[in-house]
């Protein structure tokens, strides 16, 4: 289970809308507990792809390291990343699976014609064979 506060949901939707036609991506900070992940904040990151930005995103190694450092400085855990699928459903692609890491939550937002729609979250199965959807709960703060 992944729990997102409304502010984080809204931040992801705004980012997805603003970047529309290109994929938006960002990082999720929070705490991992036995019953699931509690996201405290969603922060936009730069999609460093120069080509095919409508269907691909990449976070540079240095941006990733900064996010790790930020998490450890603030005593939080890097829980995963979100990205948008412009004009495509909120399901992971084979490309997402190929690039996935264990533990992380991959939150995907579908953006249709510029309007944010469905949001889902997935985690990689231990044997890397597929993604498993994890329940995404939204919390009024």
């Amino acid at each position, binding site marked *: 289970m992944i729990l997102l506060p409304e502010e984080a949901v809204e931040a992801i939707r705004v980012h997805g809308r603003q970047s529309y036609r290109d994929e938006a991506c960002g990082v999720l900070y929070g705490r991992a507990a036995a019953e699931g992940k509690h996201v405290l904040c969603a922060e936009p990151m730069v999609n460093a792809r120069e080509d095919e930005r409508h269907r*691909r*995103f*990449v976070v540079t190694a240095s941006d990733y390291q900064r996010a790790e450092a930020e998490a450890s400085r603030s005593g939080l855990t*890097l829980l995963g990343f979100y990205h948008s699928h412009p*004009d*495509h459903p909120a399901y992971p692609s084979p490309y*997402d699976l190929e690039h996935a890491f*264990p533990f*992380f939550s991959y939150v995907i937002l579908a953006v249709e014609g510029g309007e944010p729609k469905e949001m889902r979250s997935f985690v990689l199965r231990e044997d*890397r064979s597929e993604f498993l959807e994890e329940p995404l709960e939204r919390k009024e703060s």
Partner: protein
Amino acid sequence: MPVKVLIPTPLRPYTDQKEAVEIEGARVRDLLDNLTERYRDLRKHLFDDSGKLRSFVNVYVNEDDIRSLDRFETAVAETDVVSIVPSIAGGSASPAVVEGEVTFSKEEIQRYSRHLIMPEVGMEGQAKLKKASVLMVGAGGLGAPLGMYLAAAGIGRLGIVDFDVVDHSNLQRQVTFSAADVGRPKLQAAKERLSGINPHIRIDGYETRLSSENALDLFRDYDVIVDGTDNFPTRYLVNDACVLLGKPNVYGSIFRFEGQVSVFDASRGPCYRCLYPEPPPPGLVPSCAEGGVLGVLPGIVGSLQALEVLKLVLERGESMIGRLLVFDALQMKFRELRQRKDPDCPICGERPRIRELIDYEEFCGIPQAQEVERKMGVPTITVEGLKKLLDESDDVFVLDVREPHEWDIVRLEGATLIPLGRLPHEVHRLDSAKDIVVHCRSGARSAKATEFLLGAGFQRVRNLEGGILAWADRIDPSLPKY
């Protein structure tokens, strides 16, 4: 001695939640082996089934990616910090725009299978290649590897501009052509050869000289232009037409033992004019025909250009945009020079002054140079005239001002060799009472020598028009030409 290895959050479940672990090892390879030995479940997330580091796993030693160091052989010391850094990437399964209607036959799938099994190319990349159109300017030395590799790789539409005819002197490096092609149009021979290599592609030939009148129309239909020319007017023409149309120009040039490669794309980096705002004075930089070229060199440079074309089309890797690669075959060294966009560039700068194609012969000073040569007005003699003179008189001094290695290839009977550069020092060897006929390979150097001798007070001196090449053509066909 142990080295500190930083573990990223997603892999900490496999390292007992440790952010950093101390691992023994002198090289990155040992470290990763020992790390995955200790934490076995890590292995499948770092390496694929064949034991290769997964493409989205980066390993850093301090600030540097090991891919820019010695990779797995990178040495590490106790003071180093090694970080495993995930590359976070993803995307939707929405189709790439280029895939369009491209389909492949069974034969094509077999033919391209070594591409298709690479995830970096795959069906998607091969479809991009098939959808791509590439125009090669020139089917000579650079055009040979370019054309053959681009055809073989499956570029869907190849255009070739060339109006030349295959000559014996081409065969030393232009490997598209066979001995039987001598005398045939290069375009025709190249088309046959390339469609023999890959019958699944379309080849469009333009048997014309590229000019300011036709360049824009020819280029407009193509995605990428490849410059395989050997002269400055055409090089500036190709550059300017590419800048005006916003197309990438994959540039290569060769001379003697040296080659250069770059990609000029004014929308993303510098253009050829940012590097070379002005052409060199005519005659300063000789062409291959004048200065020679080592046979294998165009094979290397043309292949590098072909590689850059594939990378542009596949949108993979680091393009040569903004970088000039200089290859020295004698030293066997590649040097890379960073190139910046010139804000004052007359065509791609902030205030462009060139907005349409100009007269490039004029720009490169060629008509002016020819005019100067003509004005030099040195007295000349035709090869027929010299033949007659030699038959009738013994008092003719034939002066050859070429270089000794040219003398070794072919010489006129009874001639005396004094290379142009030595002439001022050895002028005493000439007899001003005799008729002096000066010759070189084709007549340019000997015109300078004639002018010099006239200035030195010799009266009966003439330049042999067309040089020893004309002699071989019209008087003694048994002589070899070079």
